[in-house]
């Protein structure tokens, strides 16, 4: 009960802070907050695959890129409506995830990871080389943020960063809520069972492969959402979104924050973006320092930052048996 109240309070507090950021802080902070939320969407969806199902993919950058390019093409060729563009981005990512996942989920562990890596890099070189369509290394540029309209009646402008911020915030909240629901659903329990004991899962009468594919597509869709939002934020889609180094981000962030929690990847995203900004001011090699932090967490605090905080909280309450 106490836990529940604490988590409601914390959620409200975080939401309040997020809502207030554009009102009280400068442009740069607003921009960073948006980057944190984008990475958060990417990572929280990805963690359905890694933390919940126990599958390590090195290719989710491809779906992120599919979201961005899907959004970009839709904007260029079909309609400038932002929400439809986002839907197109998600759809593109999900379809690509379905195609790639179909081949990958037949394998497990290292073979699965390597296959996703290979497919991801194939998508990267495809984007890089098909210059005529994708713009090659320049990417797809000039994507604009047109107002959101509903049947010509309502018109919500998102041109300014402070306006666009609230679109990202809404979708971020929605994404986290959806992932939370999935984690506590029967489907989520089956995913956890696959992580715990794949063989036994089959003897429970579950077609493991289909569930793996489903969660692969789901996490791909979240990557697509994040990608399409970034395309509008930066007004471009770049091939490096599909690069394996980008696919690594949600893994690092999940490890940093804590694999087995909903909030882990979110906290991880915050730390990741903040560290990058701060450390980059002092040194070029920010990855070196990030590496040190990651090392400490993996060697000493397996539960990630969120895990450590929880343990401390429990210890503080400990003697009374909370």
């Amino acid at each position, binding site marked *: 009960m106490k836990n529940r109240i604490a988590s409601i309070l914390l959620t409200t507090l975080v939401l309040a802070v997020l809502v207030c950021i554009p009102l009280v802080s400068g442009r740069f902070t607003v921009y960073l907050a948006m980057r944190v939320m984008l990475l958060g969407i990417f990572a929280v969806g990805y963690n359905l695959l890694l933390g919940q199902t126990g599958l390590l993919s090195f290719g989710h950058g491809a779906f992120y890129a599919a979201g961005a390019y899907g959004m970009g093409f839709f904007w260029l060729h079909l309609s400038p409506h932002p929400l439809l563009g986002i839907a197109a981005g998600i759809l593109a990512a999900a379809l690509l995830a379905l195609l790639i996942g179909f081949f990958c989920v037949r394998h497990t562990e290292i073979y699965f990871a390597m296959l996703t890596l290979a497919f991801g890099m194939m998508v990267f070189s495809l984007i890089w080389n098909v210059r005529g369509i994708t713009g090659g290394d320049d990417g797809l540029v000039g994507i604009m943020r047109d107002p959101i309209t509903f049947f010509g009646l309502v018109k919500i402008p998102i041109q300014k960063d402070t306006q666009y911020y609230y679109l990202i915030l809404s979708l971020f909240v929605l994404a986290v809520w959806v992932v939370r*629901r*999935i984690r*506590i*659903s*029967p*489907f*989520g*329990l*089956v995913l*956890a*069972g696959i992580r*715990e*004991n794949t*063989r*036994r*899962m*089959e*003897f*429970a*009468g*579950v*077609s*493991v492969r289909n569930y793996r594919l489903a969660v692969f597509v*789901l996490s791909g869709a979240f990557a697509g959402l994040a990608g399409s939002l970034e395309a509008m934020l930066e007004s471009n889609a770049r091939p490096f979104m599909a690069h394996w180094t980008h696919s690594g981000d949600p893994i690092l962030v999940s490890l940093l924050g804590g694999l087995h929690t909903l909030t882990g990847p979110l906290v991880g995203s915050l730390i990741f973006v903040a560290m990058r900004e701060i450390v980059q001011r002092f040194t070029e090699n920010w990855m070196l320092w990030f590496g040190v932090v990651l090392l400490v967490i993996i060697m000493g605090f397996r539960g990630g930052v969120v895990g450590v905080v929880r343990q401390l909280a429990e210890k503080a309450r400990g003697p009374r048996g909370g």
Partner: protein
Amino acid sequence: MGKILLETRKLSNSFGRICTARDLDLGFEEGVLASIIGPNGAGKSTLVNLLTGHLPVQSGGILFQGRDITRLPIHKRVRLGVCRSFQIVNIFPQLTVFQNVMIPVLARTGRSWRPFAKISGENAVHREVEDLLEKVGLGGVRESVAVALSHGDQRLLEVGVALAAMPVLLFLDEPTAGMNPVERVRLLESIRDLSRGGRTTFVLIEHDMDIVFSLSERIIVLHRGEVIGDGTPEEIRANDRVREVYLGDEMTDVFRITEGE
């Protein structure tokens, strides 16, 4: 004679030159609690692995309720009603006892594909899981994480997870291995009750001859991939070939000496 549930047709398997199943023609009848025994390496586990889909069938066929299941993947056999438990505890270690048993129930009732339903709202499933836990005697530890259970309780959970799939035919691979005598008796009694309940037909793979002879209505003796004895406990006791294989020339109180493997 009851209806034949599962039938094998010239089922064979070998690992390299070691033959673990040779032209097996076996039938398992509905409601008859059978046991499969045999010395180590006789092919007991191989047989169960073949029947449940763990091992691909090299030659021969398997029919379940008249349907060819020779090439069916594991989960589809389970859905049809062929399930098993494992000799080495094989549960979901970091999930609670309740969740362990809940997974097969969700899968069986077709409720596992819903990503937006809340588990806490599944009242029918909850009741069923509670019933099952009471049956196997784990009602008191339902919220414990499986890995934290005692060995005996983990064995019970192993059987509970298998039962939760509500199989028509259930193979229990040494269900009492490593249990203390009290737990053992308790588990065997619940198996006997469940077997009489008639919903599930049990097939035991056992080393403990006391259990086998007190519980089974039919005993199948395997040796090097072949059936060397198949009949009621009395028939098996009187079977010369079985005595020979099991005991060599030691001829005392037959089936008590086989445990020290």
